[in-house]
């Protein structure tokens, strides 16, 4: 029996199969993806990055930031909160309802103050629906609230899992494979301050105590102060610069900081829902933001 053609054919089929499955199919499914709509607001998502942030993506690529940072938030599940927006005009009935649902909350004197606030936390959908029904029947206005769960959410790294739509306008796509540094999928939400990022690039340990990030001083220019200090110089004391010198960001640094700020996956999507406040502030804040 001649094995040559057989081996060749077998290997051809095996590779063709995986090529079809992991190259051709995704190229059609993901490669032809269109922007979607945020729910329930209906705004288009995602929006292409502005020019400066787009240049920042190139700086991110050229310096291999993706070697240490992921941009993928993992999610384990979702739970519900029940938010009471309005206590209504029948306080005794409402108090009874809350006593039934959350005896602990009801025992506090200001149970019905400072609305909207969560009555129940971390419950399943059925329980949340029952509670909403009860509260509404007692004359109040309550709504169920979807909250994504998982260690990444607890860390304040995101409000929902990352989905393919988040990367729609990125080229190259750099989802990252390693978390030597924190996840950056929502770094623009955590740190919307451009100057914070500039200081952080120049002297990471001066901004985040114990940071292991290498300094990116080559993205800045350190020079003697001329007749008067430059308006865009970094605050000297904070980053530890000797007197008479100033540090000004090069265009790459500003672009990279603009890119950081543009990283915000904050639109609830049909495929990855979470509830957002409409008008009123979000009732339950995520845990303290940590870097």
């Amino acid at each position, binding site marked *: 029996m*001649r*094995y*040559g053609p057989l*081996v*060749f054919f077998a*290997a*051809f089929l*095996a*590779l063709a*199969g*995986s090529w079809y*499955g*992991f*190259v051709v199919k995704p*190229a059609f*499914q*993901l*490669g*032809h*993806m269109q922007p979607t709509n945020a729910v329930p607001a209906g705004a288009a998502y995602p929006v292409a990055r502005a020019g400066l942030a787009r240049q920042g993506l190139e700086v991110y*690529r*050229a*310096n*291999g*930031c*993706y*070697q*240490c940072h992921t941009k993928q938030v*993992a999610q384990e599940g979702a739970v519900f909160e029940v938010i009471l927006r309005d206590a209504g005009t029948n306080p005794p009935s409402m108090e009874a309802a809350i006593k039934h649902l959350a005896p602990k909350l009801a025992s506090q004197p200001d149970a019905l103050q400072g609305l909207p606030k969560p009555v129940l936390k971390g419950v399943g959908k059925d329980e949340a629906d029952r509670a909403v029904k009860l509260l509404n029947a007692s004359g109040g206005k309550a709504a169920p609230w979807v909250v994504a769960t998982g*260690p990444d959410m607890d*860390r304040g790294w995101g409000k929902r899992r*990352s*989905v*393919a739509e*988040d*990367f*729609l*306008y*990125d080229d*190259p*796509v*750099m*989802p990252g*494979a*390693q*978390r*030597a540094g*924190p996840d950056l999928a929502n770094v623009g939400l955590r740190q919307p301050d451009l100057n914070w990022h500039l200081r952080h690039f120049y002297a*990471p340990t001066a901004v985040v105590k*114990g*940071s*292991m*990030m*290498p*300094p*990116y*001083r*080559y993205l800045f220019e350190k020079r003697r102060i001329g007749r008067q200090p430059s308006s865009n110089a970094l605050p000297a004391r904070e980053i530890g610069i000797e007197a008479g010198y100033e540090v000004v960001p090069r265009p790459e640094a500003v672009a990279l900081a603009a890119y950081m700020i543009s990283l915000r996956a904050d639109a609830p999507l049909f495929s990855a829902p979470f509830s957002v406040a409409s008008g009123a502030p979000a009732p339950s804040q995520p845990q303290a933001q*940590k*870097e």
Partner: protein
Amino acid sequence: MSASVTVVKTEAVSSKAEEAAGLLPVEWLAMLGLFITAAFWLVLSSGLALVSSIKFHSPAFLADTAWLTYGRARAASSNLLLYGFCVPGGMGVALWILMRSGRAALQLPVMGVLSVLLFNLGALMGLLGILRGDASGHVDFEFPGYAAAFVFLGFVAVGVSAALTLHSRRNADLSVPQWHLLASVFWFPWIYSTAVLLLLLMPLRGMAQAVVSWWFSANFQLVWMGLVGLGAAFYLLPKALGREPASRNLALFCFWSLILFGSWTGVPQTASVPAWLPALSAAATFVSAVLYLGVLVAWREMARGACRESWRGAAAFVSFGLSAFLISGILSIVPVAAERGELLSFTWAGLARTQLLVYGFFGMILFGCMHAAIAEFAPDAASPRVPRAQFWLAGLGIALLVLPLAGAGVMQLVKMRNPDIAFVDVSKSTLHFLRLSTMGDLLILVANALLLVHLISTVAKALRVKAVESLASVMAEVKS
């Protein structure tokens, strides 16, 4: 070299000298060229790995040079290892095995020599490209397009030569190593051209890029390296032990499970893509357990009753490589199988698995083959002690690299799950492990340098002996 020794040796090698057209036959020129330049890039790669490893305990180390910032040094290191060492070195070994197992001469050796040039141009331009900030941005596929083109052409050149050599074999049926190498010769151009086309030339939109990049990495690092590495193991281990090769059916089983299941692994469980992609990959990773079981059984069959011998000489490299392959298999299955283990792929454990597969398995088996080939080229000049020393240095180095990284990964996973531990503290808790792994990087650098020096000095010594011999024979003719 004293004249009397030379004269004695002249007779011993005279038959070989007649076969050889000149001092260095062109087939050896191609193979040694691939080996030595691959070893050169390997040394450079491990030097850069050491630099980037040191940056973890002192982030400010060499940080003010854009060319050597962590992200670039790390990328240059891993890509030189893959495309500067693994691909050319693997193809050099493939040529050697195809010639020896088929008892054939190298066909179109010029193409082999040409590939040495192309591979080296590719590696050089890739290195410079990454360091100056032209990296593609796709992990482990970071050579910019202008470098990737040379790597591709280099592979096509050496692939043509390899395929023709296989065609001119003396045995009618393909033997086990031969069919592995046949599959590898056409596997790489397919996956590499797909990646170059869809990631660099006409980039796909959005996450489709990431899926293609994961697909490429799995097919390159697991399937292609598995085909070449297992093929070489199936050739070298029985040869070194002087035993029967593994049973055909068992080898066929390993081959099938490698190409059928290995080619579907790669998409991590945390991927932000439609759920069917990671689910399919998880299933394939699960099922690939049969591959590792098959390799284990084949290994036991080949080394049965020769436990001690299989850890000596060239066989030791193969034994180490196969153990590394099996452990890397376990490391790839754990994140999929363990409950809530999916985040493990975001930790240092992911790097541990890759290093074990690429250096511990593929690299070590290539070293064994290179030492065996060089001993064949220069039986008198090749010292048996250097391979032994290199084996221990490299083996200890990879163990010191991988074990701490895996430990750091588990530590990261456990602490990352607890939101009360600040991220900075999570990173700090891995520092002890990373310091140990720097020692591993250092040992690996020494081992790689030893390999390069050994290859060059052995070849130089053998060439000098041959030159003296041919000079002596000319003198003898003149005298008579």
